[in-house]
């Protein structure tokens, strides 16, 4: 009896130790892969940062009317944003290589799925980033235009434009990621349609007089009154 217990214990210990021994090289390979990828990512990030700064990337981007990108960047620097993005991409690849060292078949399937999904993910990220930049740009333009026209609801208008663009691009991004399926489409259609309907009702019914009066005051009368007395050009 005792002998059988001892045998079972020996066998289980051997199995665990063997399993651990089998896992150990994979674990070490994973750690090594992560370490190497961190090293490569750091060097690549550093070089990228240096070269982007040397070509004055941040200023050039502002010149291309993409200053909205700097607002969502760490320390308002698109250079940092790009270098950090590359840094984390390299680490992600390193992690995938590390995981592949554990079990080839499992990771092969995982890699296939990850890489199959990657283009969608990339497009979604680009959509969100671009949407954010466009939303901020348009919102700022609307706000400045509204203030220059002396409209009292400029901030509201600007906020509305910003969130419309963000909601639109987020819905597009979620569709690319395959998250939510038809629910997103439906929710977006209801939300967007609701906003448009609410605006139409507000303008058409409740605020008709207010809007008419406001537009008349802000454009025609103002121009007539001030243009007569002051000539700016």
């Amino acid at each position, binding site marked *: 009896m005792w002998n059988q217990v001892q045998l079972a214990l020996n066998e289980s210990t051997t199995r665990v130790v063997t399993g651990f021994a089998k896992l150990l090289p994979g674990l070490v390979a994973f750690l090594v892969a992560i370490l190497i990828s961190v090293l490569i990512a750091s060097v690549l990030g550093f070089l990228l940062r240096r070269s982007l700064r040397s070509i004055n990337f941040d*200023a050039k981007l*502002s010149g291309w009317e993409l200053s909205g990108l700097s607002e969502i960047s760490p320390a308002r620097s698109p250079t940092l944003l790009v270098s950090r993005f590359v840094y984390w991409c390299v680490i992600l690849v390193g992690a995938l290589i590390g995981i592949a060292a554990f079990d080839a078949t499992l990771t092969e399937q995982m890699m296939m799925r990850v890489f199959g999904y990657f283009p969608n993910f990339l497009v979604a990220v680009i959509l969100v980033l671009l949407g954010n930049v466009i939303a901020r740009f348009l919102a700022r*333009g609307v706000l400045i*235009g509204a203030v220059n026209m*002396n409209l009292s609801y*400029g901030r509201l208008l600007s906020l509305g434009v910003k969130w419309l663009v963000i909601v639109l691009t987020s819905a597009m991004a979620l569709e690319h990621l395959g998250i939510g399926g038809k629910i997103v489409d439906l929710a977006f259609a209801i939300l967007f349609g609701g906003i448009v309907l609410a605006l139409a009702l507000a303008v058409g019914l409740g605020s008709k007089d207010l809007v008419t009066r406001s537009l008349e005051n802000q454009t025609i009368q103002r121009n007539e009154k001030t243009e007569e007395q002051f000539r*700016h050009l």
Partner: protein
Amino acid sequence: MAVSDTMAPEAKEHADRIGEADLVVALPSCQSGESLDAAIGVLRPALPDFLPNQRIVILHPDTATNSIEVTAEQAGSDASFHLFPYQMSAVGRYQEQSLYEDLRSLLQVGKTLGARTYVMMGSETSPGGLRGLAEPVLNEGYDLAVPLYSHRKFDSLINSGIVYPLTRAMYGARLHYPMATDLALSAKLAQLFLQPAGAPAQNPSSWITTKAVCAGLQLCEVYRDFAPAPSVFEPTDLSVSLAEVLGTLFAGLERDAAFWQKVRGSRAIRAFGRPAPVPAETASADVHEMIETFQRGCKDLLEIWAMALSPVTLLDLKRLSKLPVNSFHLADGVWVHVIYDFILGYRQRVISREHLLRSMTPIYLAWVASYALEVQNASPAAVENRAERLCIAFEDLKPYLLSQWRWPDRFNP
């Protein structure tokens, strides 16, 4: 010649038929046959007396040719007076692109004809105006003559509040209308303008007046009557006009940085003729809406202004927005700091340049309101003194701009 090579073959043929000219005058505002008829009808009889023994070519938009056949034939019979149809667009004041293109047309044709003097009549077509501008260049050896308009206290406010004082402080020349569209140029300045560095096909990044100052050429002003009213070709939206003017002005400063950083003070420019008397006006100014726009800007655009303005200037503007109309006053120092900070913001591209420039409209309106309240009952002489004080403030605070331009990261409270 590279320049004349760009002319259409018909235009070149026409130039060959004419031969040579002393004076080439462009009339881009005559876009229709009727307006050209009227202009030629006034100019042709008067010019031989005003400018004797000069071979004169009138360059006009080719859209106006059909309806003036008779006039053209009559003009063509006079060997010293010719009409030259050419592709030209109407020039709106402060619309540098159209002026630049028309100037190029004028200078190309003039160079092909070997002209000594070039006159761009962008807004007026009177013989007196033409003579006044052409004479200093033809007879006195000046390279550029620009009009010095008499103006009512509330006219040309962008020029009085920003363009004149800023160009004076930066370029050191007291040219009262650096963006004038009526100009007379010498062949020397034409040559400079047409040089490859002057960049045909490039967008203009500074005016011909400031180019002439930078090149150290001889400049003069000619007293003229009141500045012409805005034409139909000019934008009616103030923020668009302001952004256009400031955009050209600031781009020019960026381009000419090596020049203006060395300039200290300013020098007077010789003026020909006599100033037209300015009537005394004492109408009270209605500035409520301008102040309201400024206050709204202070509420909604503060985050945008904060990207360009220094904290102290921002604080001054906040304080100003809380003042009642009767004590509303924007100090010259604050206004100059605003302009200089926007120049720096434009240079550093803190946000989209278009947005930055358009966001300045409420502050500009605050300046107009403050200025209007100050001079509404003032005599023309007092208005002149007021303008002079503003110019001096721009000159006195130039070291601030210089320092921030050279060391943008320096602490700026």
